[in-house]
């Protein structure tokens, strides 16, 4: 398996959204004997040996699950929870995250302090530094990632986007009647913002000294995002405000924006992921994802059932917590004891917060698995992902409690844990090697749109 076609290799987990944490660098962990240029023939034996050697690490990574043997009638659905099995000529390269919470705490506290002390002007430097921490600590096949953006364009972009955001925010707050119109303008601009932001982030990310690139055009982004135009237009036409004195028909129309949004929610999420995974390159090698739209609807359809179950569970838990407490302290309640009221509110809210995090973990992990497990880079590299709902839900709940309990000091710890969990549930199945992947020209990019997507919370994170 030596003559792969064009170059290929791809970054797996979330190269777009770097994750944190440094550590010892296993540079020489994988002493691939790829040397010798004359090795077109050498490859065979070595690769076989390697694939045997890696069978062990593959078993450890996947727990020997076989997606083909999953319980789903539609084989593609198995990929929501299981990674596929490797073929005979493939070796598994698992992603590794080497950052530690202690190291990231230092980076985080120093840079966050500088951001506050400079009234935010340091934020581009802090952003770069933090992202580099996560990317440089993300390893696969003996190499790590890097973020290349320079701070000055980011600063310029953030100043522009920040000013636009301030105008948007305050005019919306002061004149609620303008808000839907402003939202419409942002919705119309969203495809352009998303495309520019992806271009910026991918072009500034590299692996093995080769850059990624996003070559999606406005047209593709519009295909992915047009439902939000519909939501914005229906918000302008029929403001989603229930009015007791309004007519039934009027009130029914006021729900239109919600209906469109819910109906297209799986479409939006799925298409956004496909936008990234189908229009990016690593070096010159194309990245492609074949997940079908119906899979996203399957995920969120089940998500609705899970949401109902979680909500009922949370309600029962809240009652089970609050009822005995109120019975126990009935007399204190009658005189409106303040501390007890706070305890009761927290006891009543916490189960719902946890249910919300669990639901998020459920849909997010299925979305990640279902797309990564059908993603290829060039012709000889496949992405495997086996992130699980239980692990993510537990992670999110513990993170939330820790961040609250430490008044925010656990934020770096939570960020590193999240990164590790996400990075290390991803792997590449490689046949042949990376040598054939060649560089491509690095396109011009602008940081302004990226800053705008941050301010306006257009979530394009992978």
């Amino acid at each position, binding site marked *: 398996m030596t003559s792969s076609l064009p*170059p290929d290799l791809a970054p797996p987990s979330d190269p777009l959204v770097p994750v944190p944490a440094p550590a010892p660098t296993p540079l020489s962990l994988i002493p691939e004997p790829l040397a010798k240029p004359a090795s077109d023939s050498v490859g065979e034996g070595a690769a076989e040996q390697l694939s045997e050697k890696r069978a062990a690490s593959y078993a450890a990574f996947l727990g020997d699950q076989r997606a083909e043997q999953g319980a789903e009638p539609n084989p593609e659905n198995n990929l929501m929870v299981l990674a596929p099995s490797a073929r005979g000529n493939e070796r598994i390269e698992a992603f590794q995250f080497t950052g530690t919470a202690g190291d990231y705490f230092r980076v985080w506290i120093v840079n966050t302090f500088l951001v506050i002390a400079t009234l935010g002007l340091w934020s581009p430097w802090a952003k770069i530094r933090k992202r580099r921490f996560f990317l440089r600590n993300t390893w696969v096949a003996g190499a790590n990632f890097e973020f290349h953006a320079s701070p000055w364009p980011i600063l310029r972009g953030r100043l522009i986007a920040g000013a636009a955001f301030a105008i948007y925010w305050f005019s919306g707050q*002061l004149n609620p009647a303008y808000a839907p119109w402003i939202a419409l303008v942002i919705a119309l601009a969203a495809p352009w913002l998303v495309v520019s932001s992806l271009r910026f982030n991918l072009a500034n990310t590299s692996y093995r000294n080769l850059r990624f690139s996003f070559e999606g055009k406005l047209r593709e982004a519009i295909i992915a995002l047009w439902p939000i135009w519909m939501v914005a237009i229906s918000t302008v036409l029929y403001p989603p405000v229930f009015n007791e004195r309004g007519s039934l028909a009027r009130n029914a129309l006021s729900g239109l924006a919600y209906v469109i949004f819910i109906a297209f929610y799986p479409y939006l999420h799925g298409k956004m992921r496909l936008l990234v995974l189908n229009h990016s390159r690593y070096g010159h090698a194309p990245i492609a994802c074949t997940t079908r739209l119906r899979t996203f609807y399957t995920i969120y359809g089940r998500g609705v059932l899970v949401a109902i179950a979680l909500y009922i569970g949370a309600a029962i838990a809240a009652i089970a917590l609050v009822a005995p407490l109120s019975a126990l302290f009935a007399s204190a309640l009658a*005189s409106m004891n303040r501390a007890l009221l706070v305890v009761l509110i927290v006891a009543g809210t916490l189960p719902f917060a946890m249910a919300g995090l669990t639901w998020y973990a459920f849909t997010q992990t299925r979305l990640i698995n279902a797309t990564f497990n059908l993603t290829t880079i060039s012709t000889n590299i496949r992405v495997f992902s086996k992130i699980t709902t239980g692990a993510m839900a537990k992670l999110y709940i513990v993170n939330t409690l820790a961040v609250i309990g430490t008044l925010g000091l656990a934020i770096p710890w939570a960020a590193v844990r999240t990164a590790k969990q996400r990075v290390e549930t991803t792997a590449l199945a490689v046949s042949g090697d990376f040598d054939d992947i060649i560089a491509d020209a690095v396109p011009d990019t602008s940081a302004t749109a990226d800053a705008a997507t941050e301010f306006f919370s257009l979530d394009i994170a992978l």
Partner: protein
Amino acid sequence: MNATSSSAETNGANGAESAAAAVPTPSGISATWFDGKTARRQLVRLQISSRTIAVVEVTNDVAGAEKVIAHVPRDLVRVSERIANTPYRLQFPDGALAISDDHCSIEASFQLSPRTHWLSRMERASWAVVIALIGLFGALYAAYEFAIPRVAAAVAERVPRAAEATLGETTFETLDGRMFTPTKLNAAQQSQIADEFQKLAKAAGLEGEVTLKFRAMQPNALAIPGGTIVVTDGLVKLFKDDTRMVSAVLAHELGHVHHRHSLKHLLEGSVSALIVGALAGDVSGVSAMVTAAPVILSTLKYTRESEREADQYAFELLRKVGRSPQDFADAMQRLELMELCFALQAKSTPGGADASTADEFDIDPDTEDRSRSDARKQRNATTQARRAACIEGLDQTIAGRETEITQLRKQSREGRTGYMHTHPVTGERIRAAESAGK
């Protein structure tokens, strides 16, 4: 690769280059090489002298000759800044890259001084981390305590009042549709209060910028953005048409209008949310509670401060029109008494209090809090009657129960109950008004 060999090399100054050339074998810093043209990964050794860097390929051939991949002047190679324990990145002039986690050797070979990478040094130095930690909490506290309220006040004062008008109209319409019912006060009552209001507005220099409206609701008065002040039927009934007390409350509301509190709260809330968002932005998948809680807490503080500010304003305005701040103390005491009456009745009723009580009787809550009172519609008739007895017939209802009232007041002053106007802060406000009235 060890640090000693390479640093010895550098120290050897002039002789270094020839020495490196003379001793070919496994010396140099181990690194991984990426040529920038393909994704190929090669293990190499970097042989760094004082002037040049030679990149030598590491092969599996035990006997094989070493192959020099690159040999360039040292000055042309850029070394990245270091982040924690991640490897150094050496950028070669032709776009190639070497990464090495042999930090000591790289630092020695390139004679990296602390100044070159001051940020990395800070992140590694414990004193800097401690200073950043203290500085961060100090800065956040300063922002919360001083910077945010002052900046918000300065900005709010400079925004023309007309900017709030639409917000005020929308807010009022919403309230009108959900909480208010038309007033049942007669024309005489209305014009008496309206006259008082005009007098106060004129003295406040807000004539023409404020409007008075009457609506039926529980005892309350509200300052709505844009300068509309609403007086409720409940308040007039509770004060038994006593113009002095109604004026005192109106003066307090004018204080909110004067200080632009609704706009100020809007700004304070946005800035708090922005700061919290920037800090917590690092973690995804943390419950919204994490970002909401600090914003809510700071908002409560700012609201409380606004009440004090409006009180102070009311005291001066009352003096200006020939009244006394004591009127305001009387009004607050009356509101407090009403809530003590609620508590008393709740105590003697088996059902206990309903939880929404706490939030509903603030003299002018932020308008968004009002949505909560939708729950009022479900309140049962018993509660309604109980409350009416405490509003319209307050004096009769508590007649003869002074001891219980005193005891309840004492409890609540110690902070053990949740009624808004029995809160310890209310005690302070009453005392402040009384001392201003002397």
